[in-house]
């Protein structure tokens, strides 16, 4: 083969390899959030949110379609747009409450299977319908970014435990842990996180209200920063910031019905205390009250999980790592009667820049 033929072939190949489908940003509709709702029996209503970039701000467009399965809904929507819908940058997927109670796995698996969707995708359950929530206009950067920032901010600095597509699937497939997702609601022109939705397999079975979220987060995950206000007595409150927590769970006794001990260690800085000097005695009493609250609230939550027979904390998996030849089935047979002891240790590190 002469060099010329070789070059010719090489050149042809190089040119042909450019013949793949192109996706030019101006010619496609980029979905930034999707929502799924129940629409009668065996029907699903799907909504996608598309940002429309204008000078100065971002407007939103939503498209809705009804169809029997999740994949079809998104296909169905293609008929409604002049430009192809692209799902590579979906950042949030929302599920209506009624659908969540029926099971959301088929609508999550579809994202899992798609190579173009990232595993940092946020999932959330909506009180009401996802469609109504997505129709709202929030923020200047478009509702899609607003929603993902809302969840991100609440996870990093507030009381939401870490969740995303990867973690949902990880816990869904785990034998000894149940998934949970943020629970949100539209309030006028805002969206609020109102709690945590708890799942058994892929069905939502319970929710935790906002007042219990702090205690849920320190038990299920860990706190690295954030603020929490506790009530001392009557009208006196103290707020503590830069909270960091460490959870230690230990097991003792036989592996089919172990005694569980949850120890929560917390460190923080006082941010606001209105009643004069923050003396050593006050500090001690704040620590004590906080410890007492953590103990009772967390214990109540865990009790509730046992009654509902769900395990969002992952006791099963933790036990599996402590006992040899562990069987999840035997463990969960006795789960609701297992004795769980909660202890807490609060340390107020310092009192800010004033004494």
């Amino acid at each position: 083969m002469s060099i010329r033929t070789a070059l010719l072939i090489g050149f042809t190949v190089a040119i042909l390899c450019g013949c793949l489908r192109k996706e030019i940003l101006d010619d496609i509709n980029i979905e930034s959030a999707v929502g799924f709702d129940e629409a009668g029996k065996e029907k699903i209503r799907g909504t996608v949110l598309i940002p429309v970039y204008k000078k100065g701000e971002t407007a939103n467009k939503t498209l809705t379609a009804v169809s029997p399965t999740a994949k079809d809904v998104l296909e169905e929507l293609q008929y409604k747009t002049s430009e192809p819908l692209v799902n590579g940058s979906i950042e949030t997927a929302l599920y209506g409450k009624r659908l969540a109670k029926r099971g959301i796995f088929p609508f999550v698996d579809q994202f899992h299977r798609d190579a173009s969707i990232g595993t940092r995708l946020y999932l959330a359950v909506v009180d009401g319908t996802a469609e109504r929530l997505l129709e709202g206009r929030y923020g200047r950067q478009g509702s899609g970014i607003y929603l993902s920032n809302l969840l991100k901010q609440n996870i990093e600095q507030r009381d939401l435990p870490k969740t995303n597509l990867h973690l949902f699937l990880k816990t869904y497939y785990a034998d000894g842990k149940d998934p949970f997702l943020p629970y949100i609601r539209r309030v006028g022109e805002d969206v609020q996180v109102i709690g945590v939705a708890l799942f058994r397999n892929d069905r939502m079975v319970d929710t935790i209200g906002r007042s219990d979220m702090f205690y849920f987060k320190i038990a299920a995950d860990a706190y690295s920063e954030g603020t929490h206000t506790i009530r001392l007595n009557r009208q006196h409150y103290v707020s503590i910031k830069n909270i960091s927590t460490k959870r230690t769970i230990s097991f003792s006794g036989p592996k089919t019905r172990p005694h569980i001990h949850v120890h929560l260690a917390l460190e923080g800085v006082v941010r606001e205390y209105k009643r004069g000097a923050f003396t050593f005695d006050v500090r001690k009493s704040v620590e004590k009250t906080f410890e007492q609250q953590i103990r009772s609230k967390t214990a109540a939550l865990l009790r509730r999980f046992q009654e509902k027979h769900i395990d969002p904390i992952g006791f099963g998996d933790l036990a599996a790592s402590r006992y040899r030849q562990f069987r999840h089935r035997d463990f969960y047979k006795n789960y609701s009667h297992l004795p769980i002891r909660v202890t807490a240790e609060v340390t107020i590190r310092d009192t800010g820049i004033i004494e």
Partner: protein
Amino acid sequence: MASVAERLQVSPFMTFFVIVSMQIGVGVLGFQRVIAKTAGHDAWISVLLAGASSHLILIVLYWLLQQADGDFLLLHQRLFGRWVGGALSSLLALYFAAMAFVVLRTYIEVIQVWMFPDLKTWEFSLAFLFLCLYITVGGFRVVVGIYFFCLIIPSYLLFTFWFVLDYTDFYQLLPILDHPPSTIVKAAKQMTLTMLGYETILLFYPFIKRGNQSAKWAHAALLTTTLFYALLTVLTLAYFSEKQLQRQIWPTLTMWKMVELPFIERFEYIGIANWLLIILPNVCLGLWCSSRICKQLFPVRQKTALLVIAAICFFSTLLIHDRKEVDFVNTILNRVGFYFLYIWIPCLAGITYIVKKVRGNV
């Protein structure tokens, strides 16, 4: 002894780069699932076990090479005569060609699934094999030069696993040794395909200056890849839950989906594109080894042999259509590699030893 002019040789130190970049191939993208299916959260022990056993095999390979004055094919001929020995060596040529083909086809599948669903197999295969031919025709020194860069450039990918650490639960690895030893050994056996690559030393040994000094570099290379695989396995086992891992075809790529940098939202695309550099040496050396055997066995020039082998590889990649078939050829290569390294090489060493005792030399 097949003497190779000194100007064509490389320093013993380069053995390290050749072996490491030959070992790290497409296997890394998905081996965790297979071994975790057998050995569960103890799979990382299997990796160490597979690494340890390949050190032993490498010692045997070096011993064999010394007995044959550096020419492995000569050993075949001296022990089994011209015809049987020649037949065995041609099987070896087939094996290396198959290695190049399987690696290439598996990588094309990754591109098709992850990046360009409408990429035709032949387009990529043809372009890639041309590149490989271009490199391989330049001779072993050029191939090694490419190796060096193909290991150094993608090595930054190691740091990307830092992002995954946020989502790892290392307690999932406990309790250690909860699976029966037999399953751990079985998983180690399944590691063969991922560990394969160091047996190419049989062919390129004559191209190393002061060949026997390269042994320490070869062992260092094996140790490096073993530790890398073990680390990756530990991360994977901590990142996924057990049943979730079973659903991932390419766990390494799925882990990259978690990486997010300010300037790039989805890292796996960069990772896959960079992986081309890791695949390149694999295919090149496979082709080179295969053509080198042909040159020694048959009255052909190495370039002609290369062209024919590359053409065969090209048409073979077209025959594979879907995931099941890709999986199938990978399993076959895994099995063949296992029999070659762990059954045939020890047998050969035994025969050589006996013949040496009887005849006085080999």
